[in-house]
């Protein structure tokens, strides 16, 4: 299995159309509760295999951070709600992974009602992202996010990225789905 190690700070320049500094800080706020730098995740890909994996569908992701980000992150818990931290941390990890492993994976966002809607303009893909601290929640979150992603405004195919940043389980379930898949799903 391949291992990739990237600094979370990469997301700030990797997505020029998004402001992500706070997501980097929140990701570190959460990861540093359970691990030093780098923090390890087991990433499982479903329905696609990124080019760098050469056909494999799993890899180890090691996310590192600088002392400066750690200092910012230390203040996050004083001002933020835990739920918001987990969700923003997930956006941080997703943007890091897309930037490094999906060619042309730069993201953009629109507001759609109460939700932020992420998309990959160059690939014409929708993206749904979710985070949790409890591994047992991953399957349900994944189902919900898959349904949300497939009902996207553009009718595009796309990715679902659900990460668990827990004390003992740190896994990412990353899948690709097509509109055809939804049409052919049993009722």
């Amino acid at each position: 299995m391949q291992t990739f190690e990237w600094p979370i700070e990469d997301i700030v320049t990797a997505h020029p159309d998004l402001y992500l500094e706070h997501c980097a800080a929140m990701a570190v706020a959460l990861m540093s509760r359970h691990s030093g730098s780098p923090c390890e995740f087991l990433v499982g890909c479903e329905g696609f295999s990124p080019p760098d994996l050469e056909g494999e569908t799993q890899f180890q992701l090691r996310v590192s951070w600088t002392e400066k980000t750690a200092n910012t992150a230390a203040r996050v818990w004083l001002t933020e709600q835990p739920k918001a931290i987990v969700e923003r941390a997930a956006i941080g990890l997703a943007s890091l992974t897309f930037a490094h492993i999906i060619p042309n994976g730069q993201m953009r966002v629109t507001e759609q009602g109460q939700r932020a809607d992420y998309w990959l303009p160059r690939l014409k893909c929708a993206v749904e992202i979710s985070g949790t601290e409890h591994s047992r929640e991953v399957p349900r979150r994944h189902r919900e996010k898959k349904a949300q992603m497939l009902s996207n405004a553009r009718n595009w195919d796309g990715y679902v990225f659900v990460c668990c940043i827990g004390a003992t389980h740190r896994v990412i379930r990353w899948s690709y789905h097509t509109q055809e898949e939804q049409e052919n799903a049993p009722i």
Partner: protein
Amino acid sequence: MPRSKRKPSAELIDQMLGEASWLLSHAQALADYGRQEEASAEFVRAGSCEEQVACLLEADGQDREAAIHRVSAASCFERLGLHSRAVTFLHAALSVPLPKDYRARVEQQLASDLILARKELNRAFARRARKQASGV
């Protein structure tokens, strides 16, 4: 240096889409940090940028994309409590064909904004009436 083969309008649209996205994510970050005044100012800028990019997309014949960005503009103004303005954008968004699920969500958003817009306008009217009465 070779000149770009893309149409100038496509470049302008792409640039503005990027700008709208950045402003939105920045506004969301400011809101996350509880910096409400700065977040509100940034949501105004993001909403205006989404409004402008929607016009460019419509002029370019991209009606569905224009609608998506009008919904985004509406959502920015909702955050500022400007529901009557959001209603206008949502009506414009619903005037073009949209995927069924998405249309249903936008219609729901419109229904909720109409209720809130009425409250918003009732409050504004009551304030004005009180001001006039105290001025007499």
